[in-house]
């Protein structure tokens, strides 16, 4: 099997569409720390890209930069051909098309599960209340928490909260979904219920960028694995290729540490 190393030669088994998210020469510093170094990454329509790497490698920052929760110092990020706007309404419009799932769920603590899911469609997309609610219930059913619709987030388990957060992001009908370590804050027994939802999303053709430590998910659902270390993309490959035959010493070192148990 060929290794996917360049963006214009997608040789993965799935048919990939046009470039949806493109990062060109992206740099960012946190003070003296050069957290993103000359990042080049293209994610195609329908592609599932898993970003892995040691803590502090810049993978979360990369993920957050794509909907401008982190600003970048230079370089260009485009989503569906549109460069990220600086601030204001144009940025809000773009964010509405980019779903985001956070490590700490971040469900609106003062709103019910159902209101969490309908808020975006109603206030941003101007969907009428009844329609927004019936669509939200369908999404909650899809992620398996429809029976909790009228509870407050604090009454739910972590796994349930994260599935609600996925439904909330899906309710905006995003072009791409960003997952920033979605299972890292979960108790071990709840990890799979969230990963199952993500795997089914991937199978349905959602474009996904997933920062995670779940190698099982990467093997099962990823079209491509991006390995980051010290602010750089060190290696990109299809999951089988990456896990069985990593090219760089950094990746070999990383994998030997996490796969030895």
């Amino acid at each position: 099997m060929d290794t996917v190393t360049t963006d214009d030669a997608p040789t993965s088994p799935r048919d990939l569409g046009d470039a949806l998210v493109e990062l060109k020469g992206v740099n960012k510093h946190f003070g003296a720390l050069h957290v993103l170094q000359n990042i080049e990454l293209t994610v195609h329509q329908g592609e599932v890209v898993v970003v892995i790497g040691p803590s502090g490698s810049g993978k979360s920052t990369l993920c957050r930069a794509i909907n401008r929760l982190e600003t970048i110092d230079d370089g260009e990020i485009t989503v569906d051909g549109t460069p990220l706007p600086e601030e204001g309404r144009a940025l809000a419009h773009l964010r509405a098309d980019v779903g985001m799932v956070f490590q700490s769920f971040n469900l609106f603590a003062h709103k019910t599960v159902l209101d969490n899911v309908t808020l975006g469609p109603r206030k941003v997309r101007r969907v009428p209340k009844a329609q927004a609610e019936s669509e939200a219930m369908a999404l909650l059913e899809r992620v398996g928490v429809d029976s909790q619709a009228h509870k407050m987030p604090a009454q739910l388990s972590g796994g349930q909260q994260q599935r609600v957060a996925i439904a909330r992001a899906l309710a905006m009908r995003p072009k791409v979904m960003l997952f920033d370590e979605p299972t890292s804050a979960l108790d071990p027994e709840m990890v799979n219920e969230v990963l199952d939802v993500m795997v089914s999303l991937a199978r349905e053709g959602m474009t996904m960028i997933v920062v995670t430590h779940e190698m099982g998910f990467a093997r099962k659902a990823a079209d491509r694995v991006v390995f980051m270390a010290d602010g750089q993309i060190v290696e990109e490959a299809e999951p089988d290729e990456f896990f069985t035959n990593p090219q760089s010493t950094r990746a070999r070192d990383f994998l030997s540490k996490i796969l030895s148990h």
Partner: protein
Amino acid sequence: MGDYLSGLWTVFETYNVLDAFWVNIQLTFWAGLFALALGTVLAIMRISPIASLRFVGTAYVNIIRNTPLTIIMTFMILALVFQLALELSSDLTTSFFRFAIVGLAIYHASFVCEAIRSGVNTVPLGQAEAARAIGLPFLDSARLVILPQAFRGAIAPLGSVLIALMKNSTVAAAASVTTETSSVMKVAIEFNPNYLLEIFGVFAIGWLILVIPVGLLTTWLSERLAVKR
């Protein structure tokens, strides 16, 4: 003894204590309402992504908060009413009353702003990020996600501001509102110095009756309405 009591009774018949407290309650109500509105706007300015708005909000709070209330109230009357001949009513007494409300509102808005900002600090950053991530612009994020949680976290400090406002409403005397408690008490004592302690005691107890329930209520509300995380 009988003479003493009937004399004391006459004092409180002459000076209508309940009406005086009612004036303070009205001052507090209207000034509190306007201060809450203005303070909320200031708080939104201070957390907004626009630097010039943040600057104006910060400047307002720092200038007004550090100016003695008596000076603001005196300024209202001496500068606005007597020098600039502004009026908020054709009736001078009503005009004084309304200027006192404006002065109290302007002053306490700075404290309301800071109380709300302390409430904003109780809302985790992730809430704002999630609001932005679903495409809500700043004002909608503030209105729908941040402020509803911030107000619940700010009930206790807002209660303190309300209590301060109630007591500060006596400074309306400096704005020539002569029917409120401190003015009435002063006159009553001046003309009946032999009942000094009794007059003082009645007003002091009246204030306790007004203020203590506010403290109890806000403590109860802040626990009851706290956002569960």
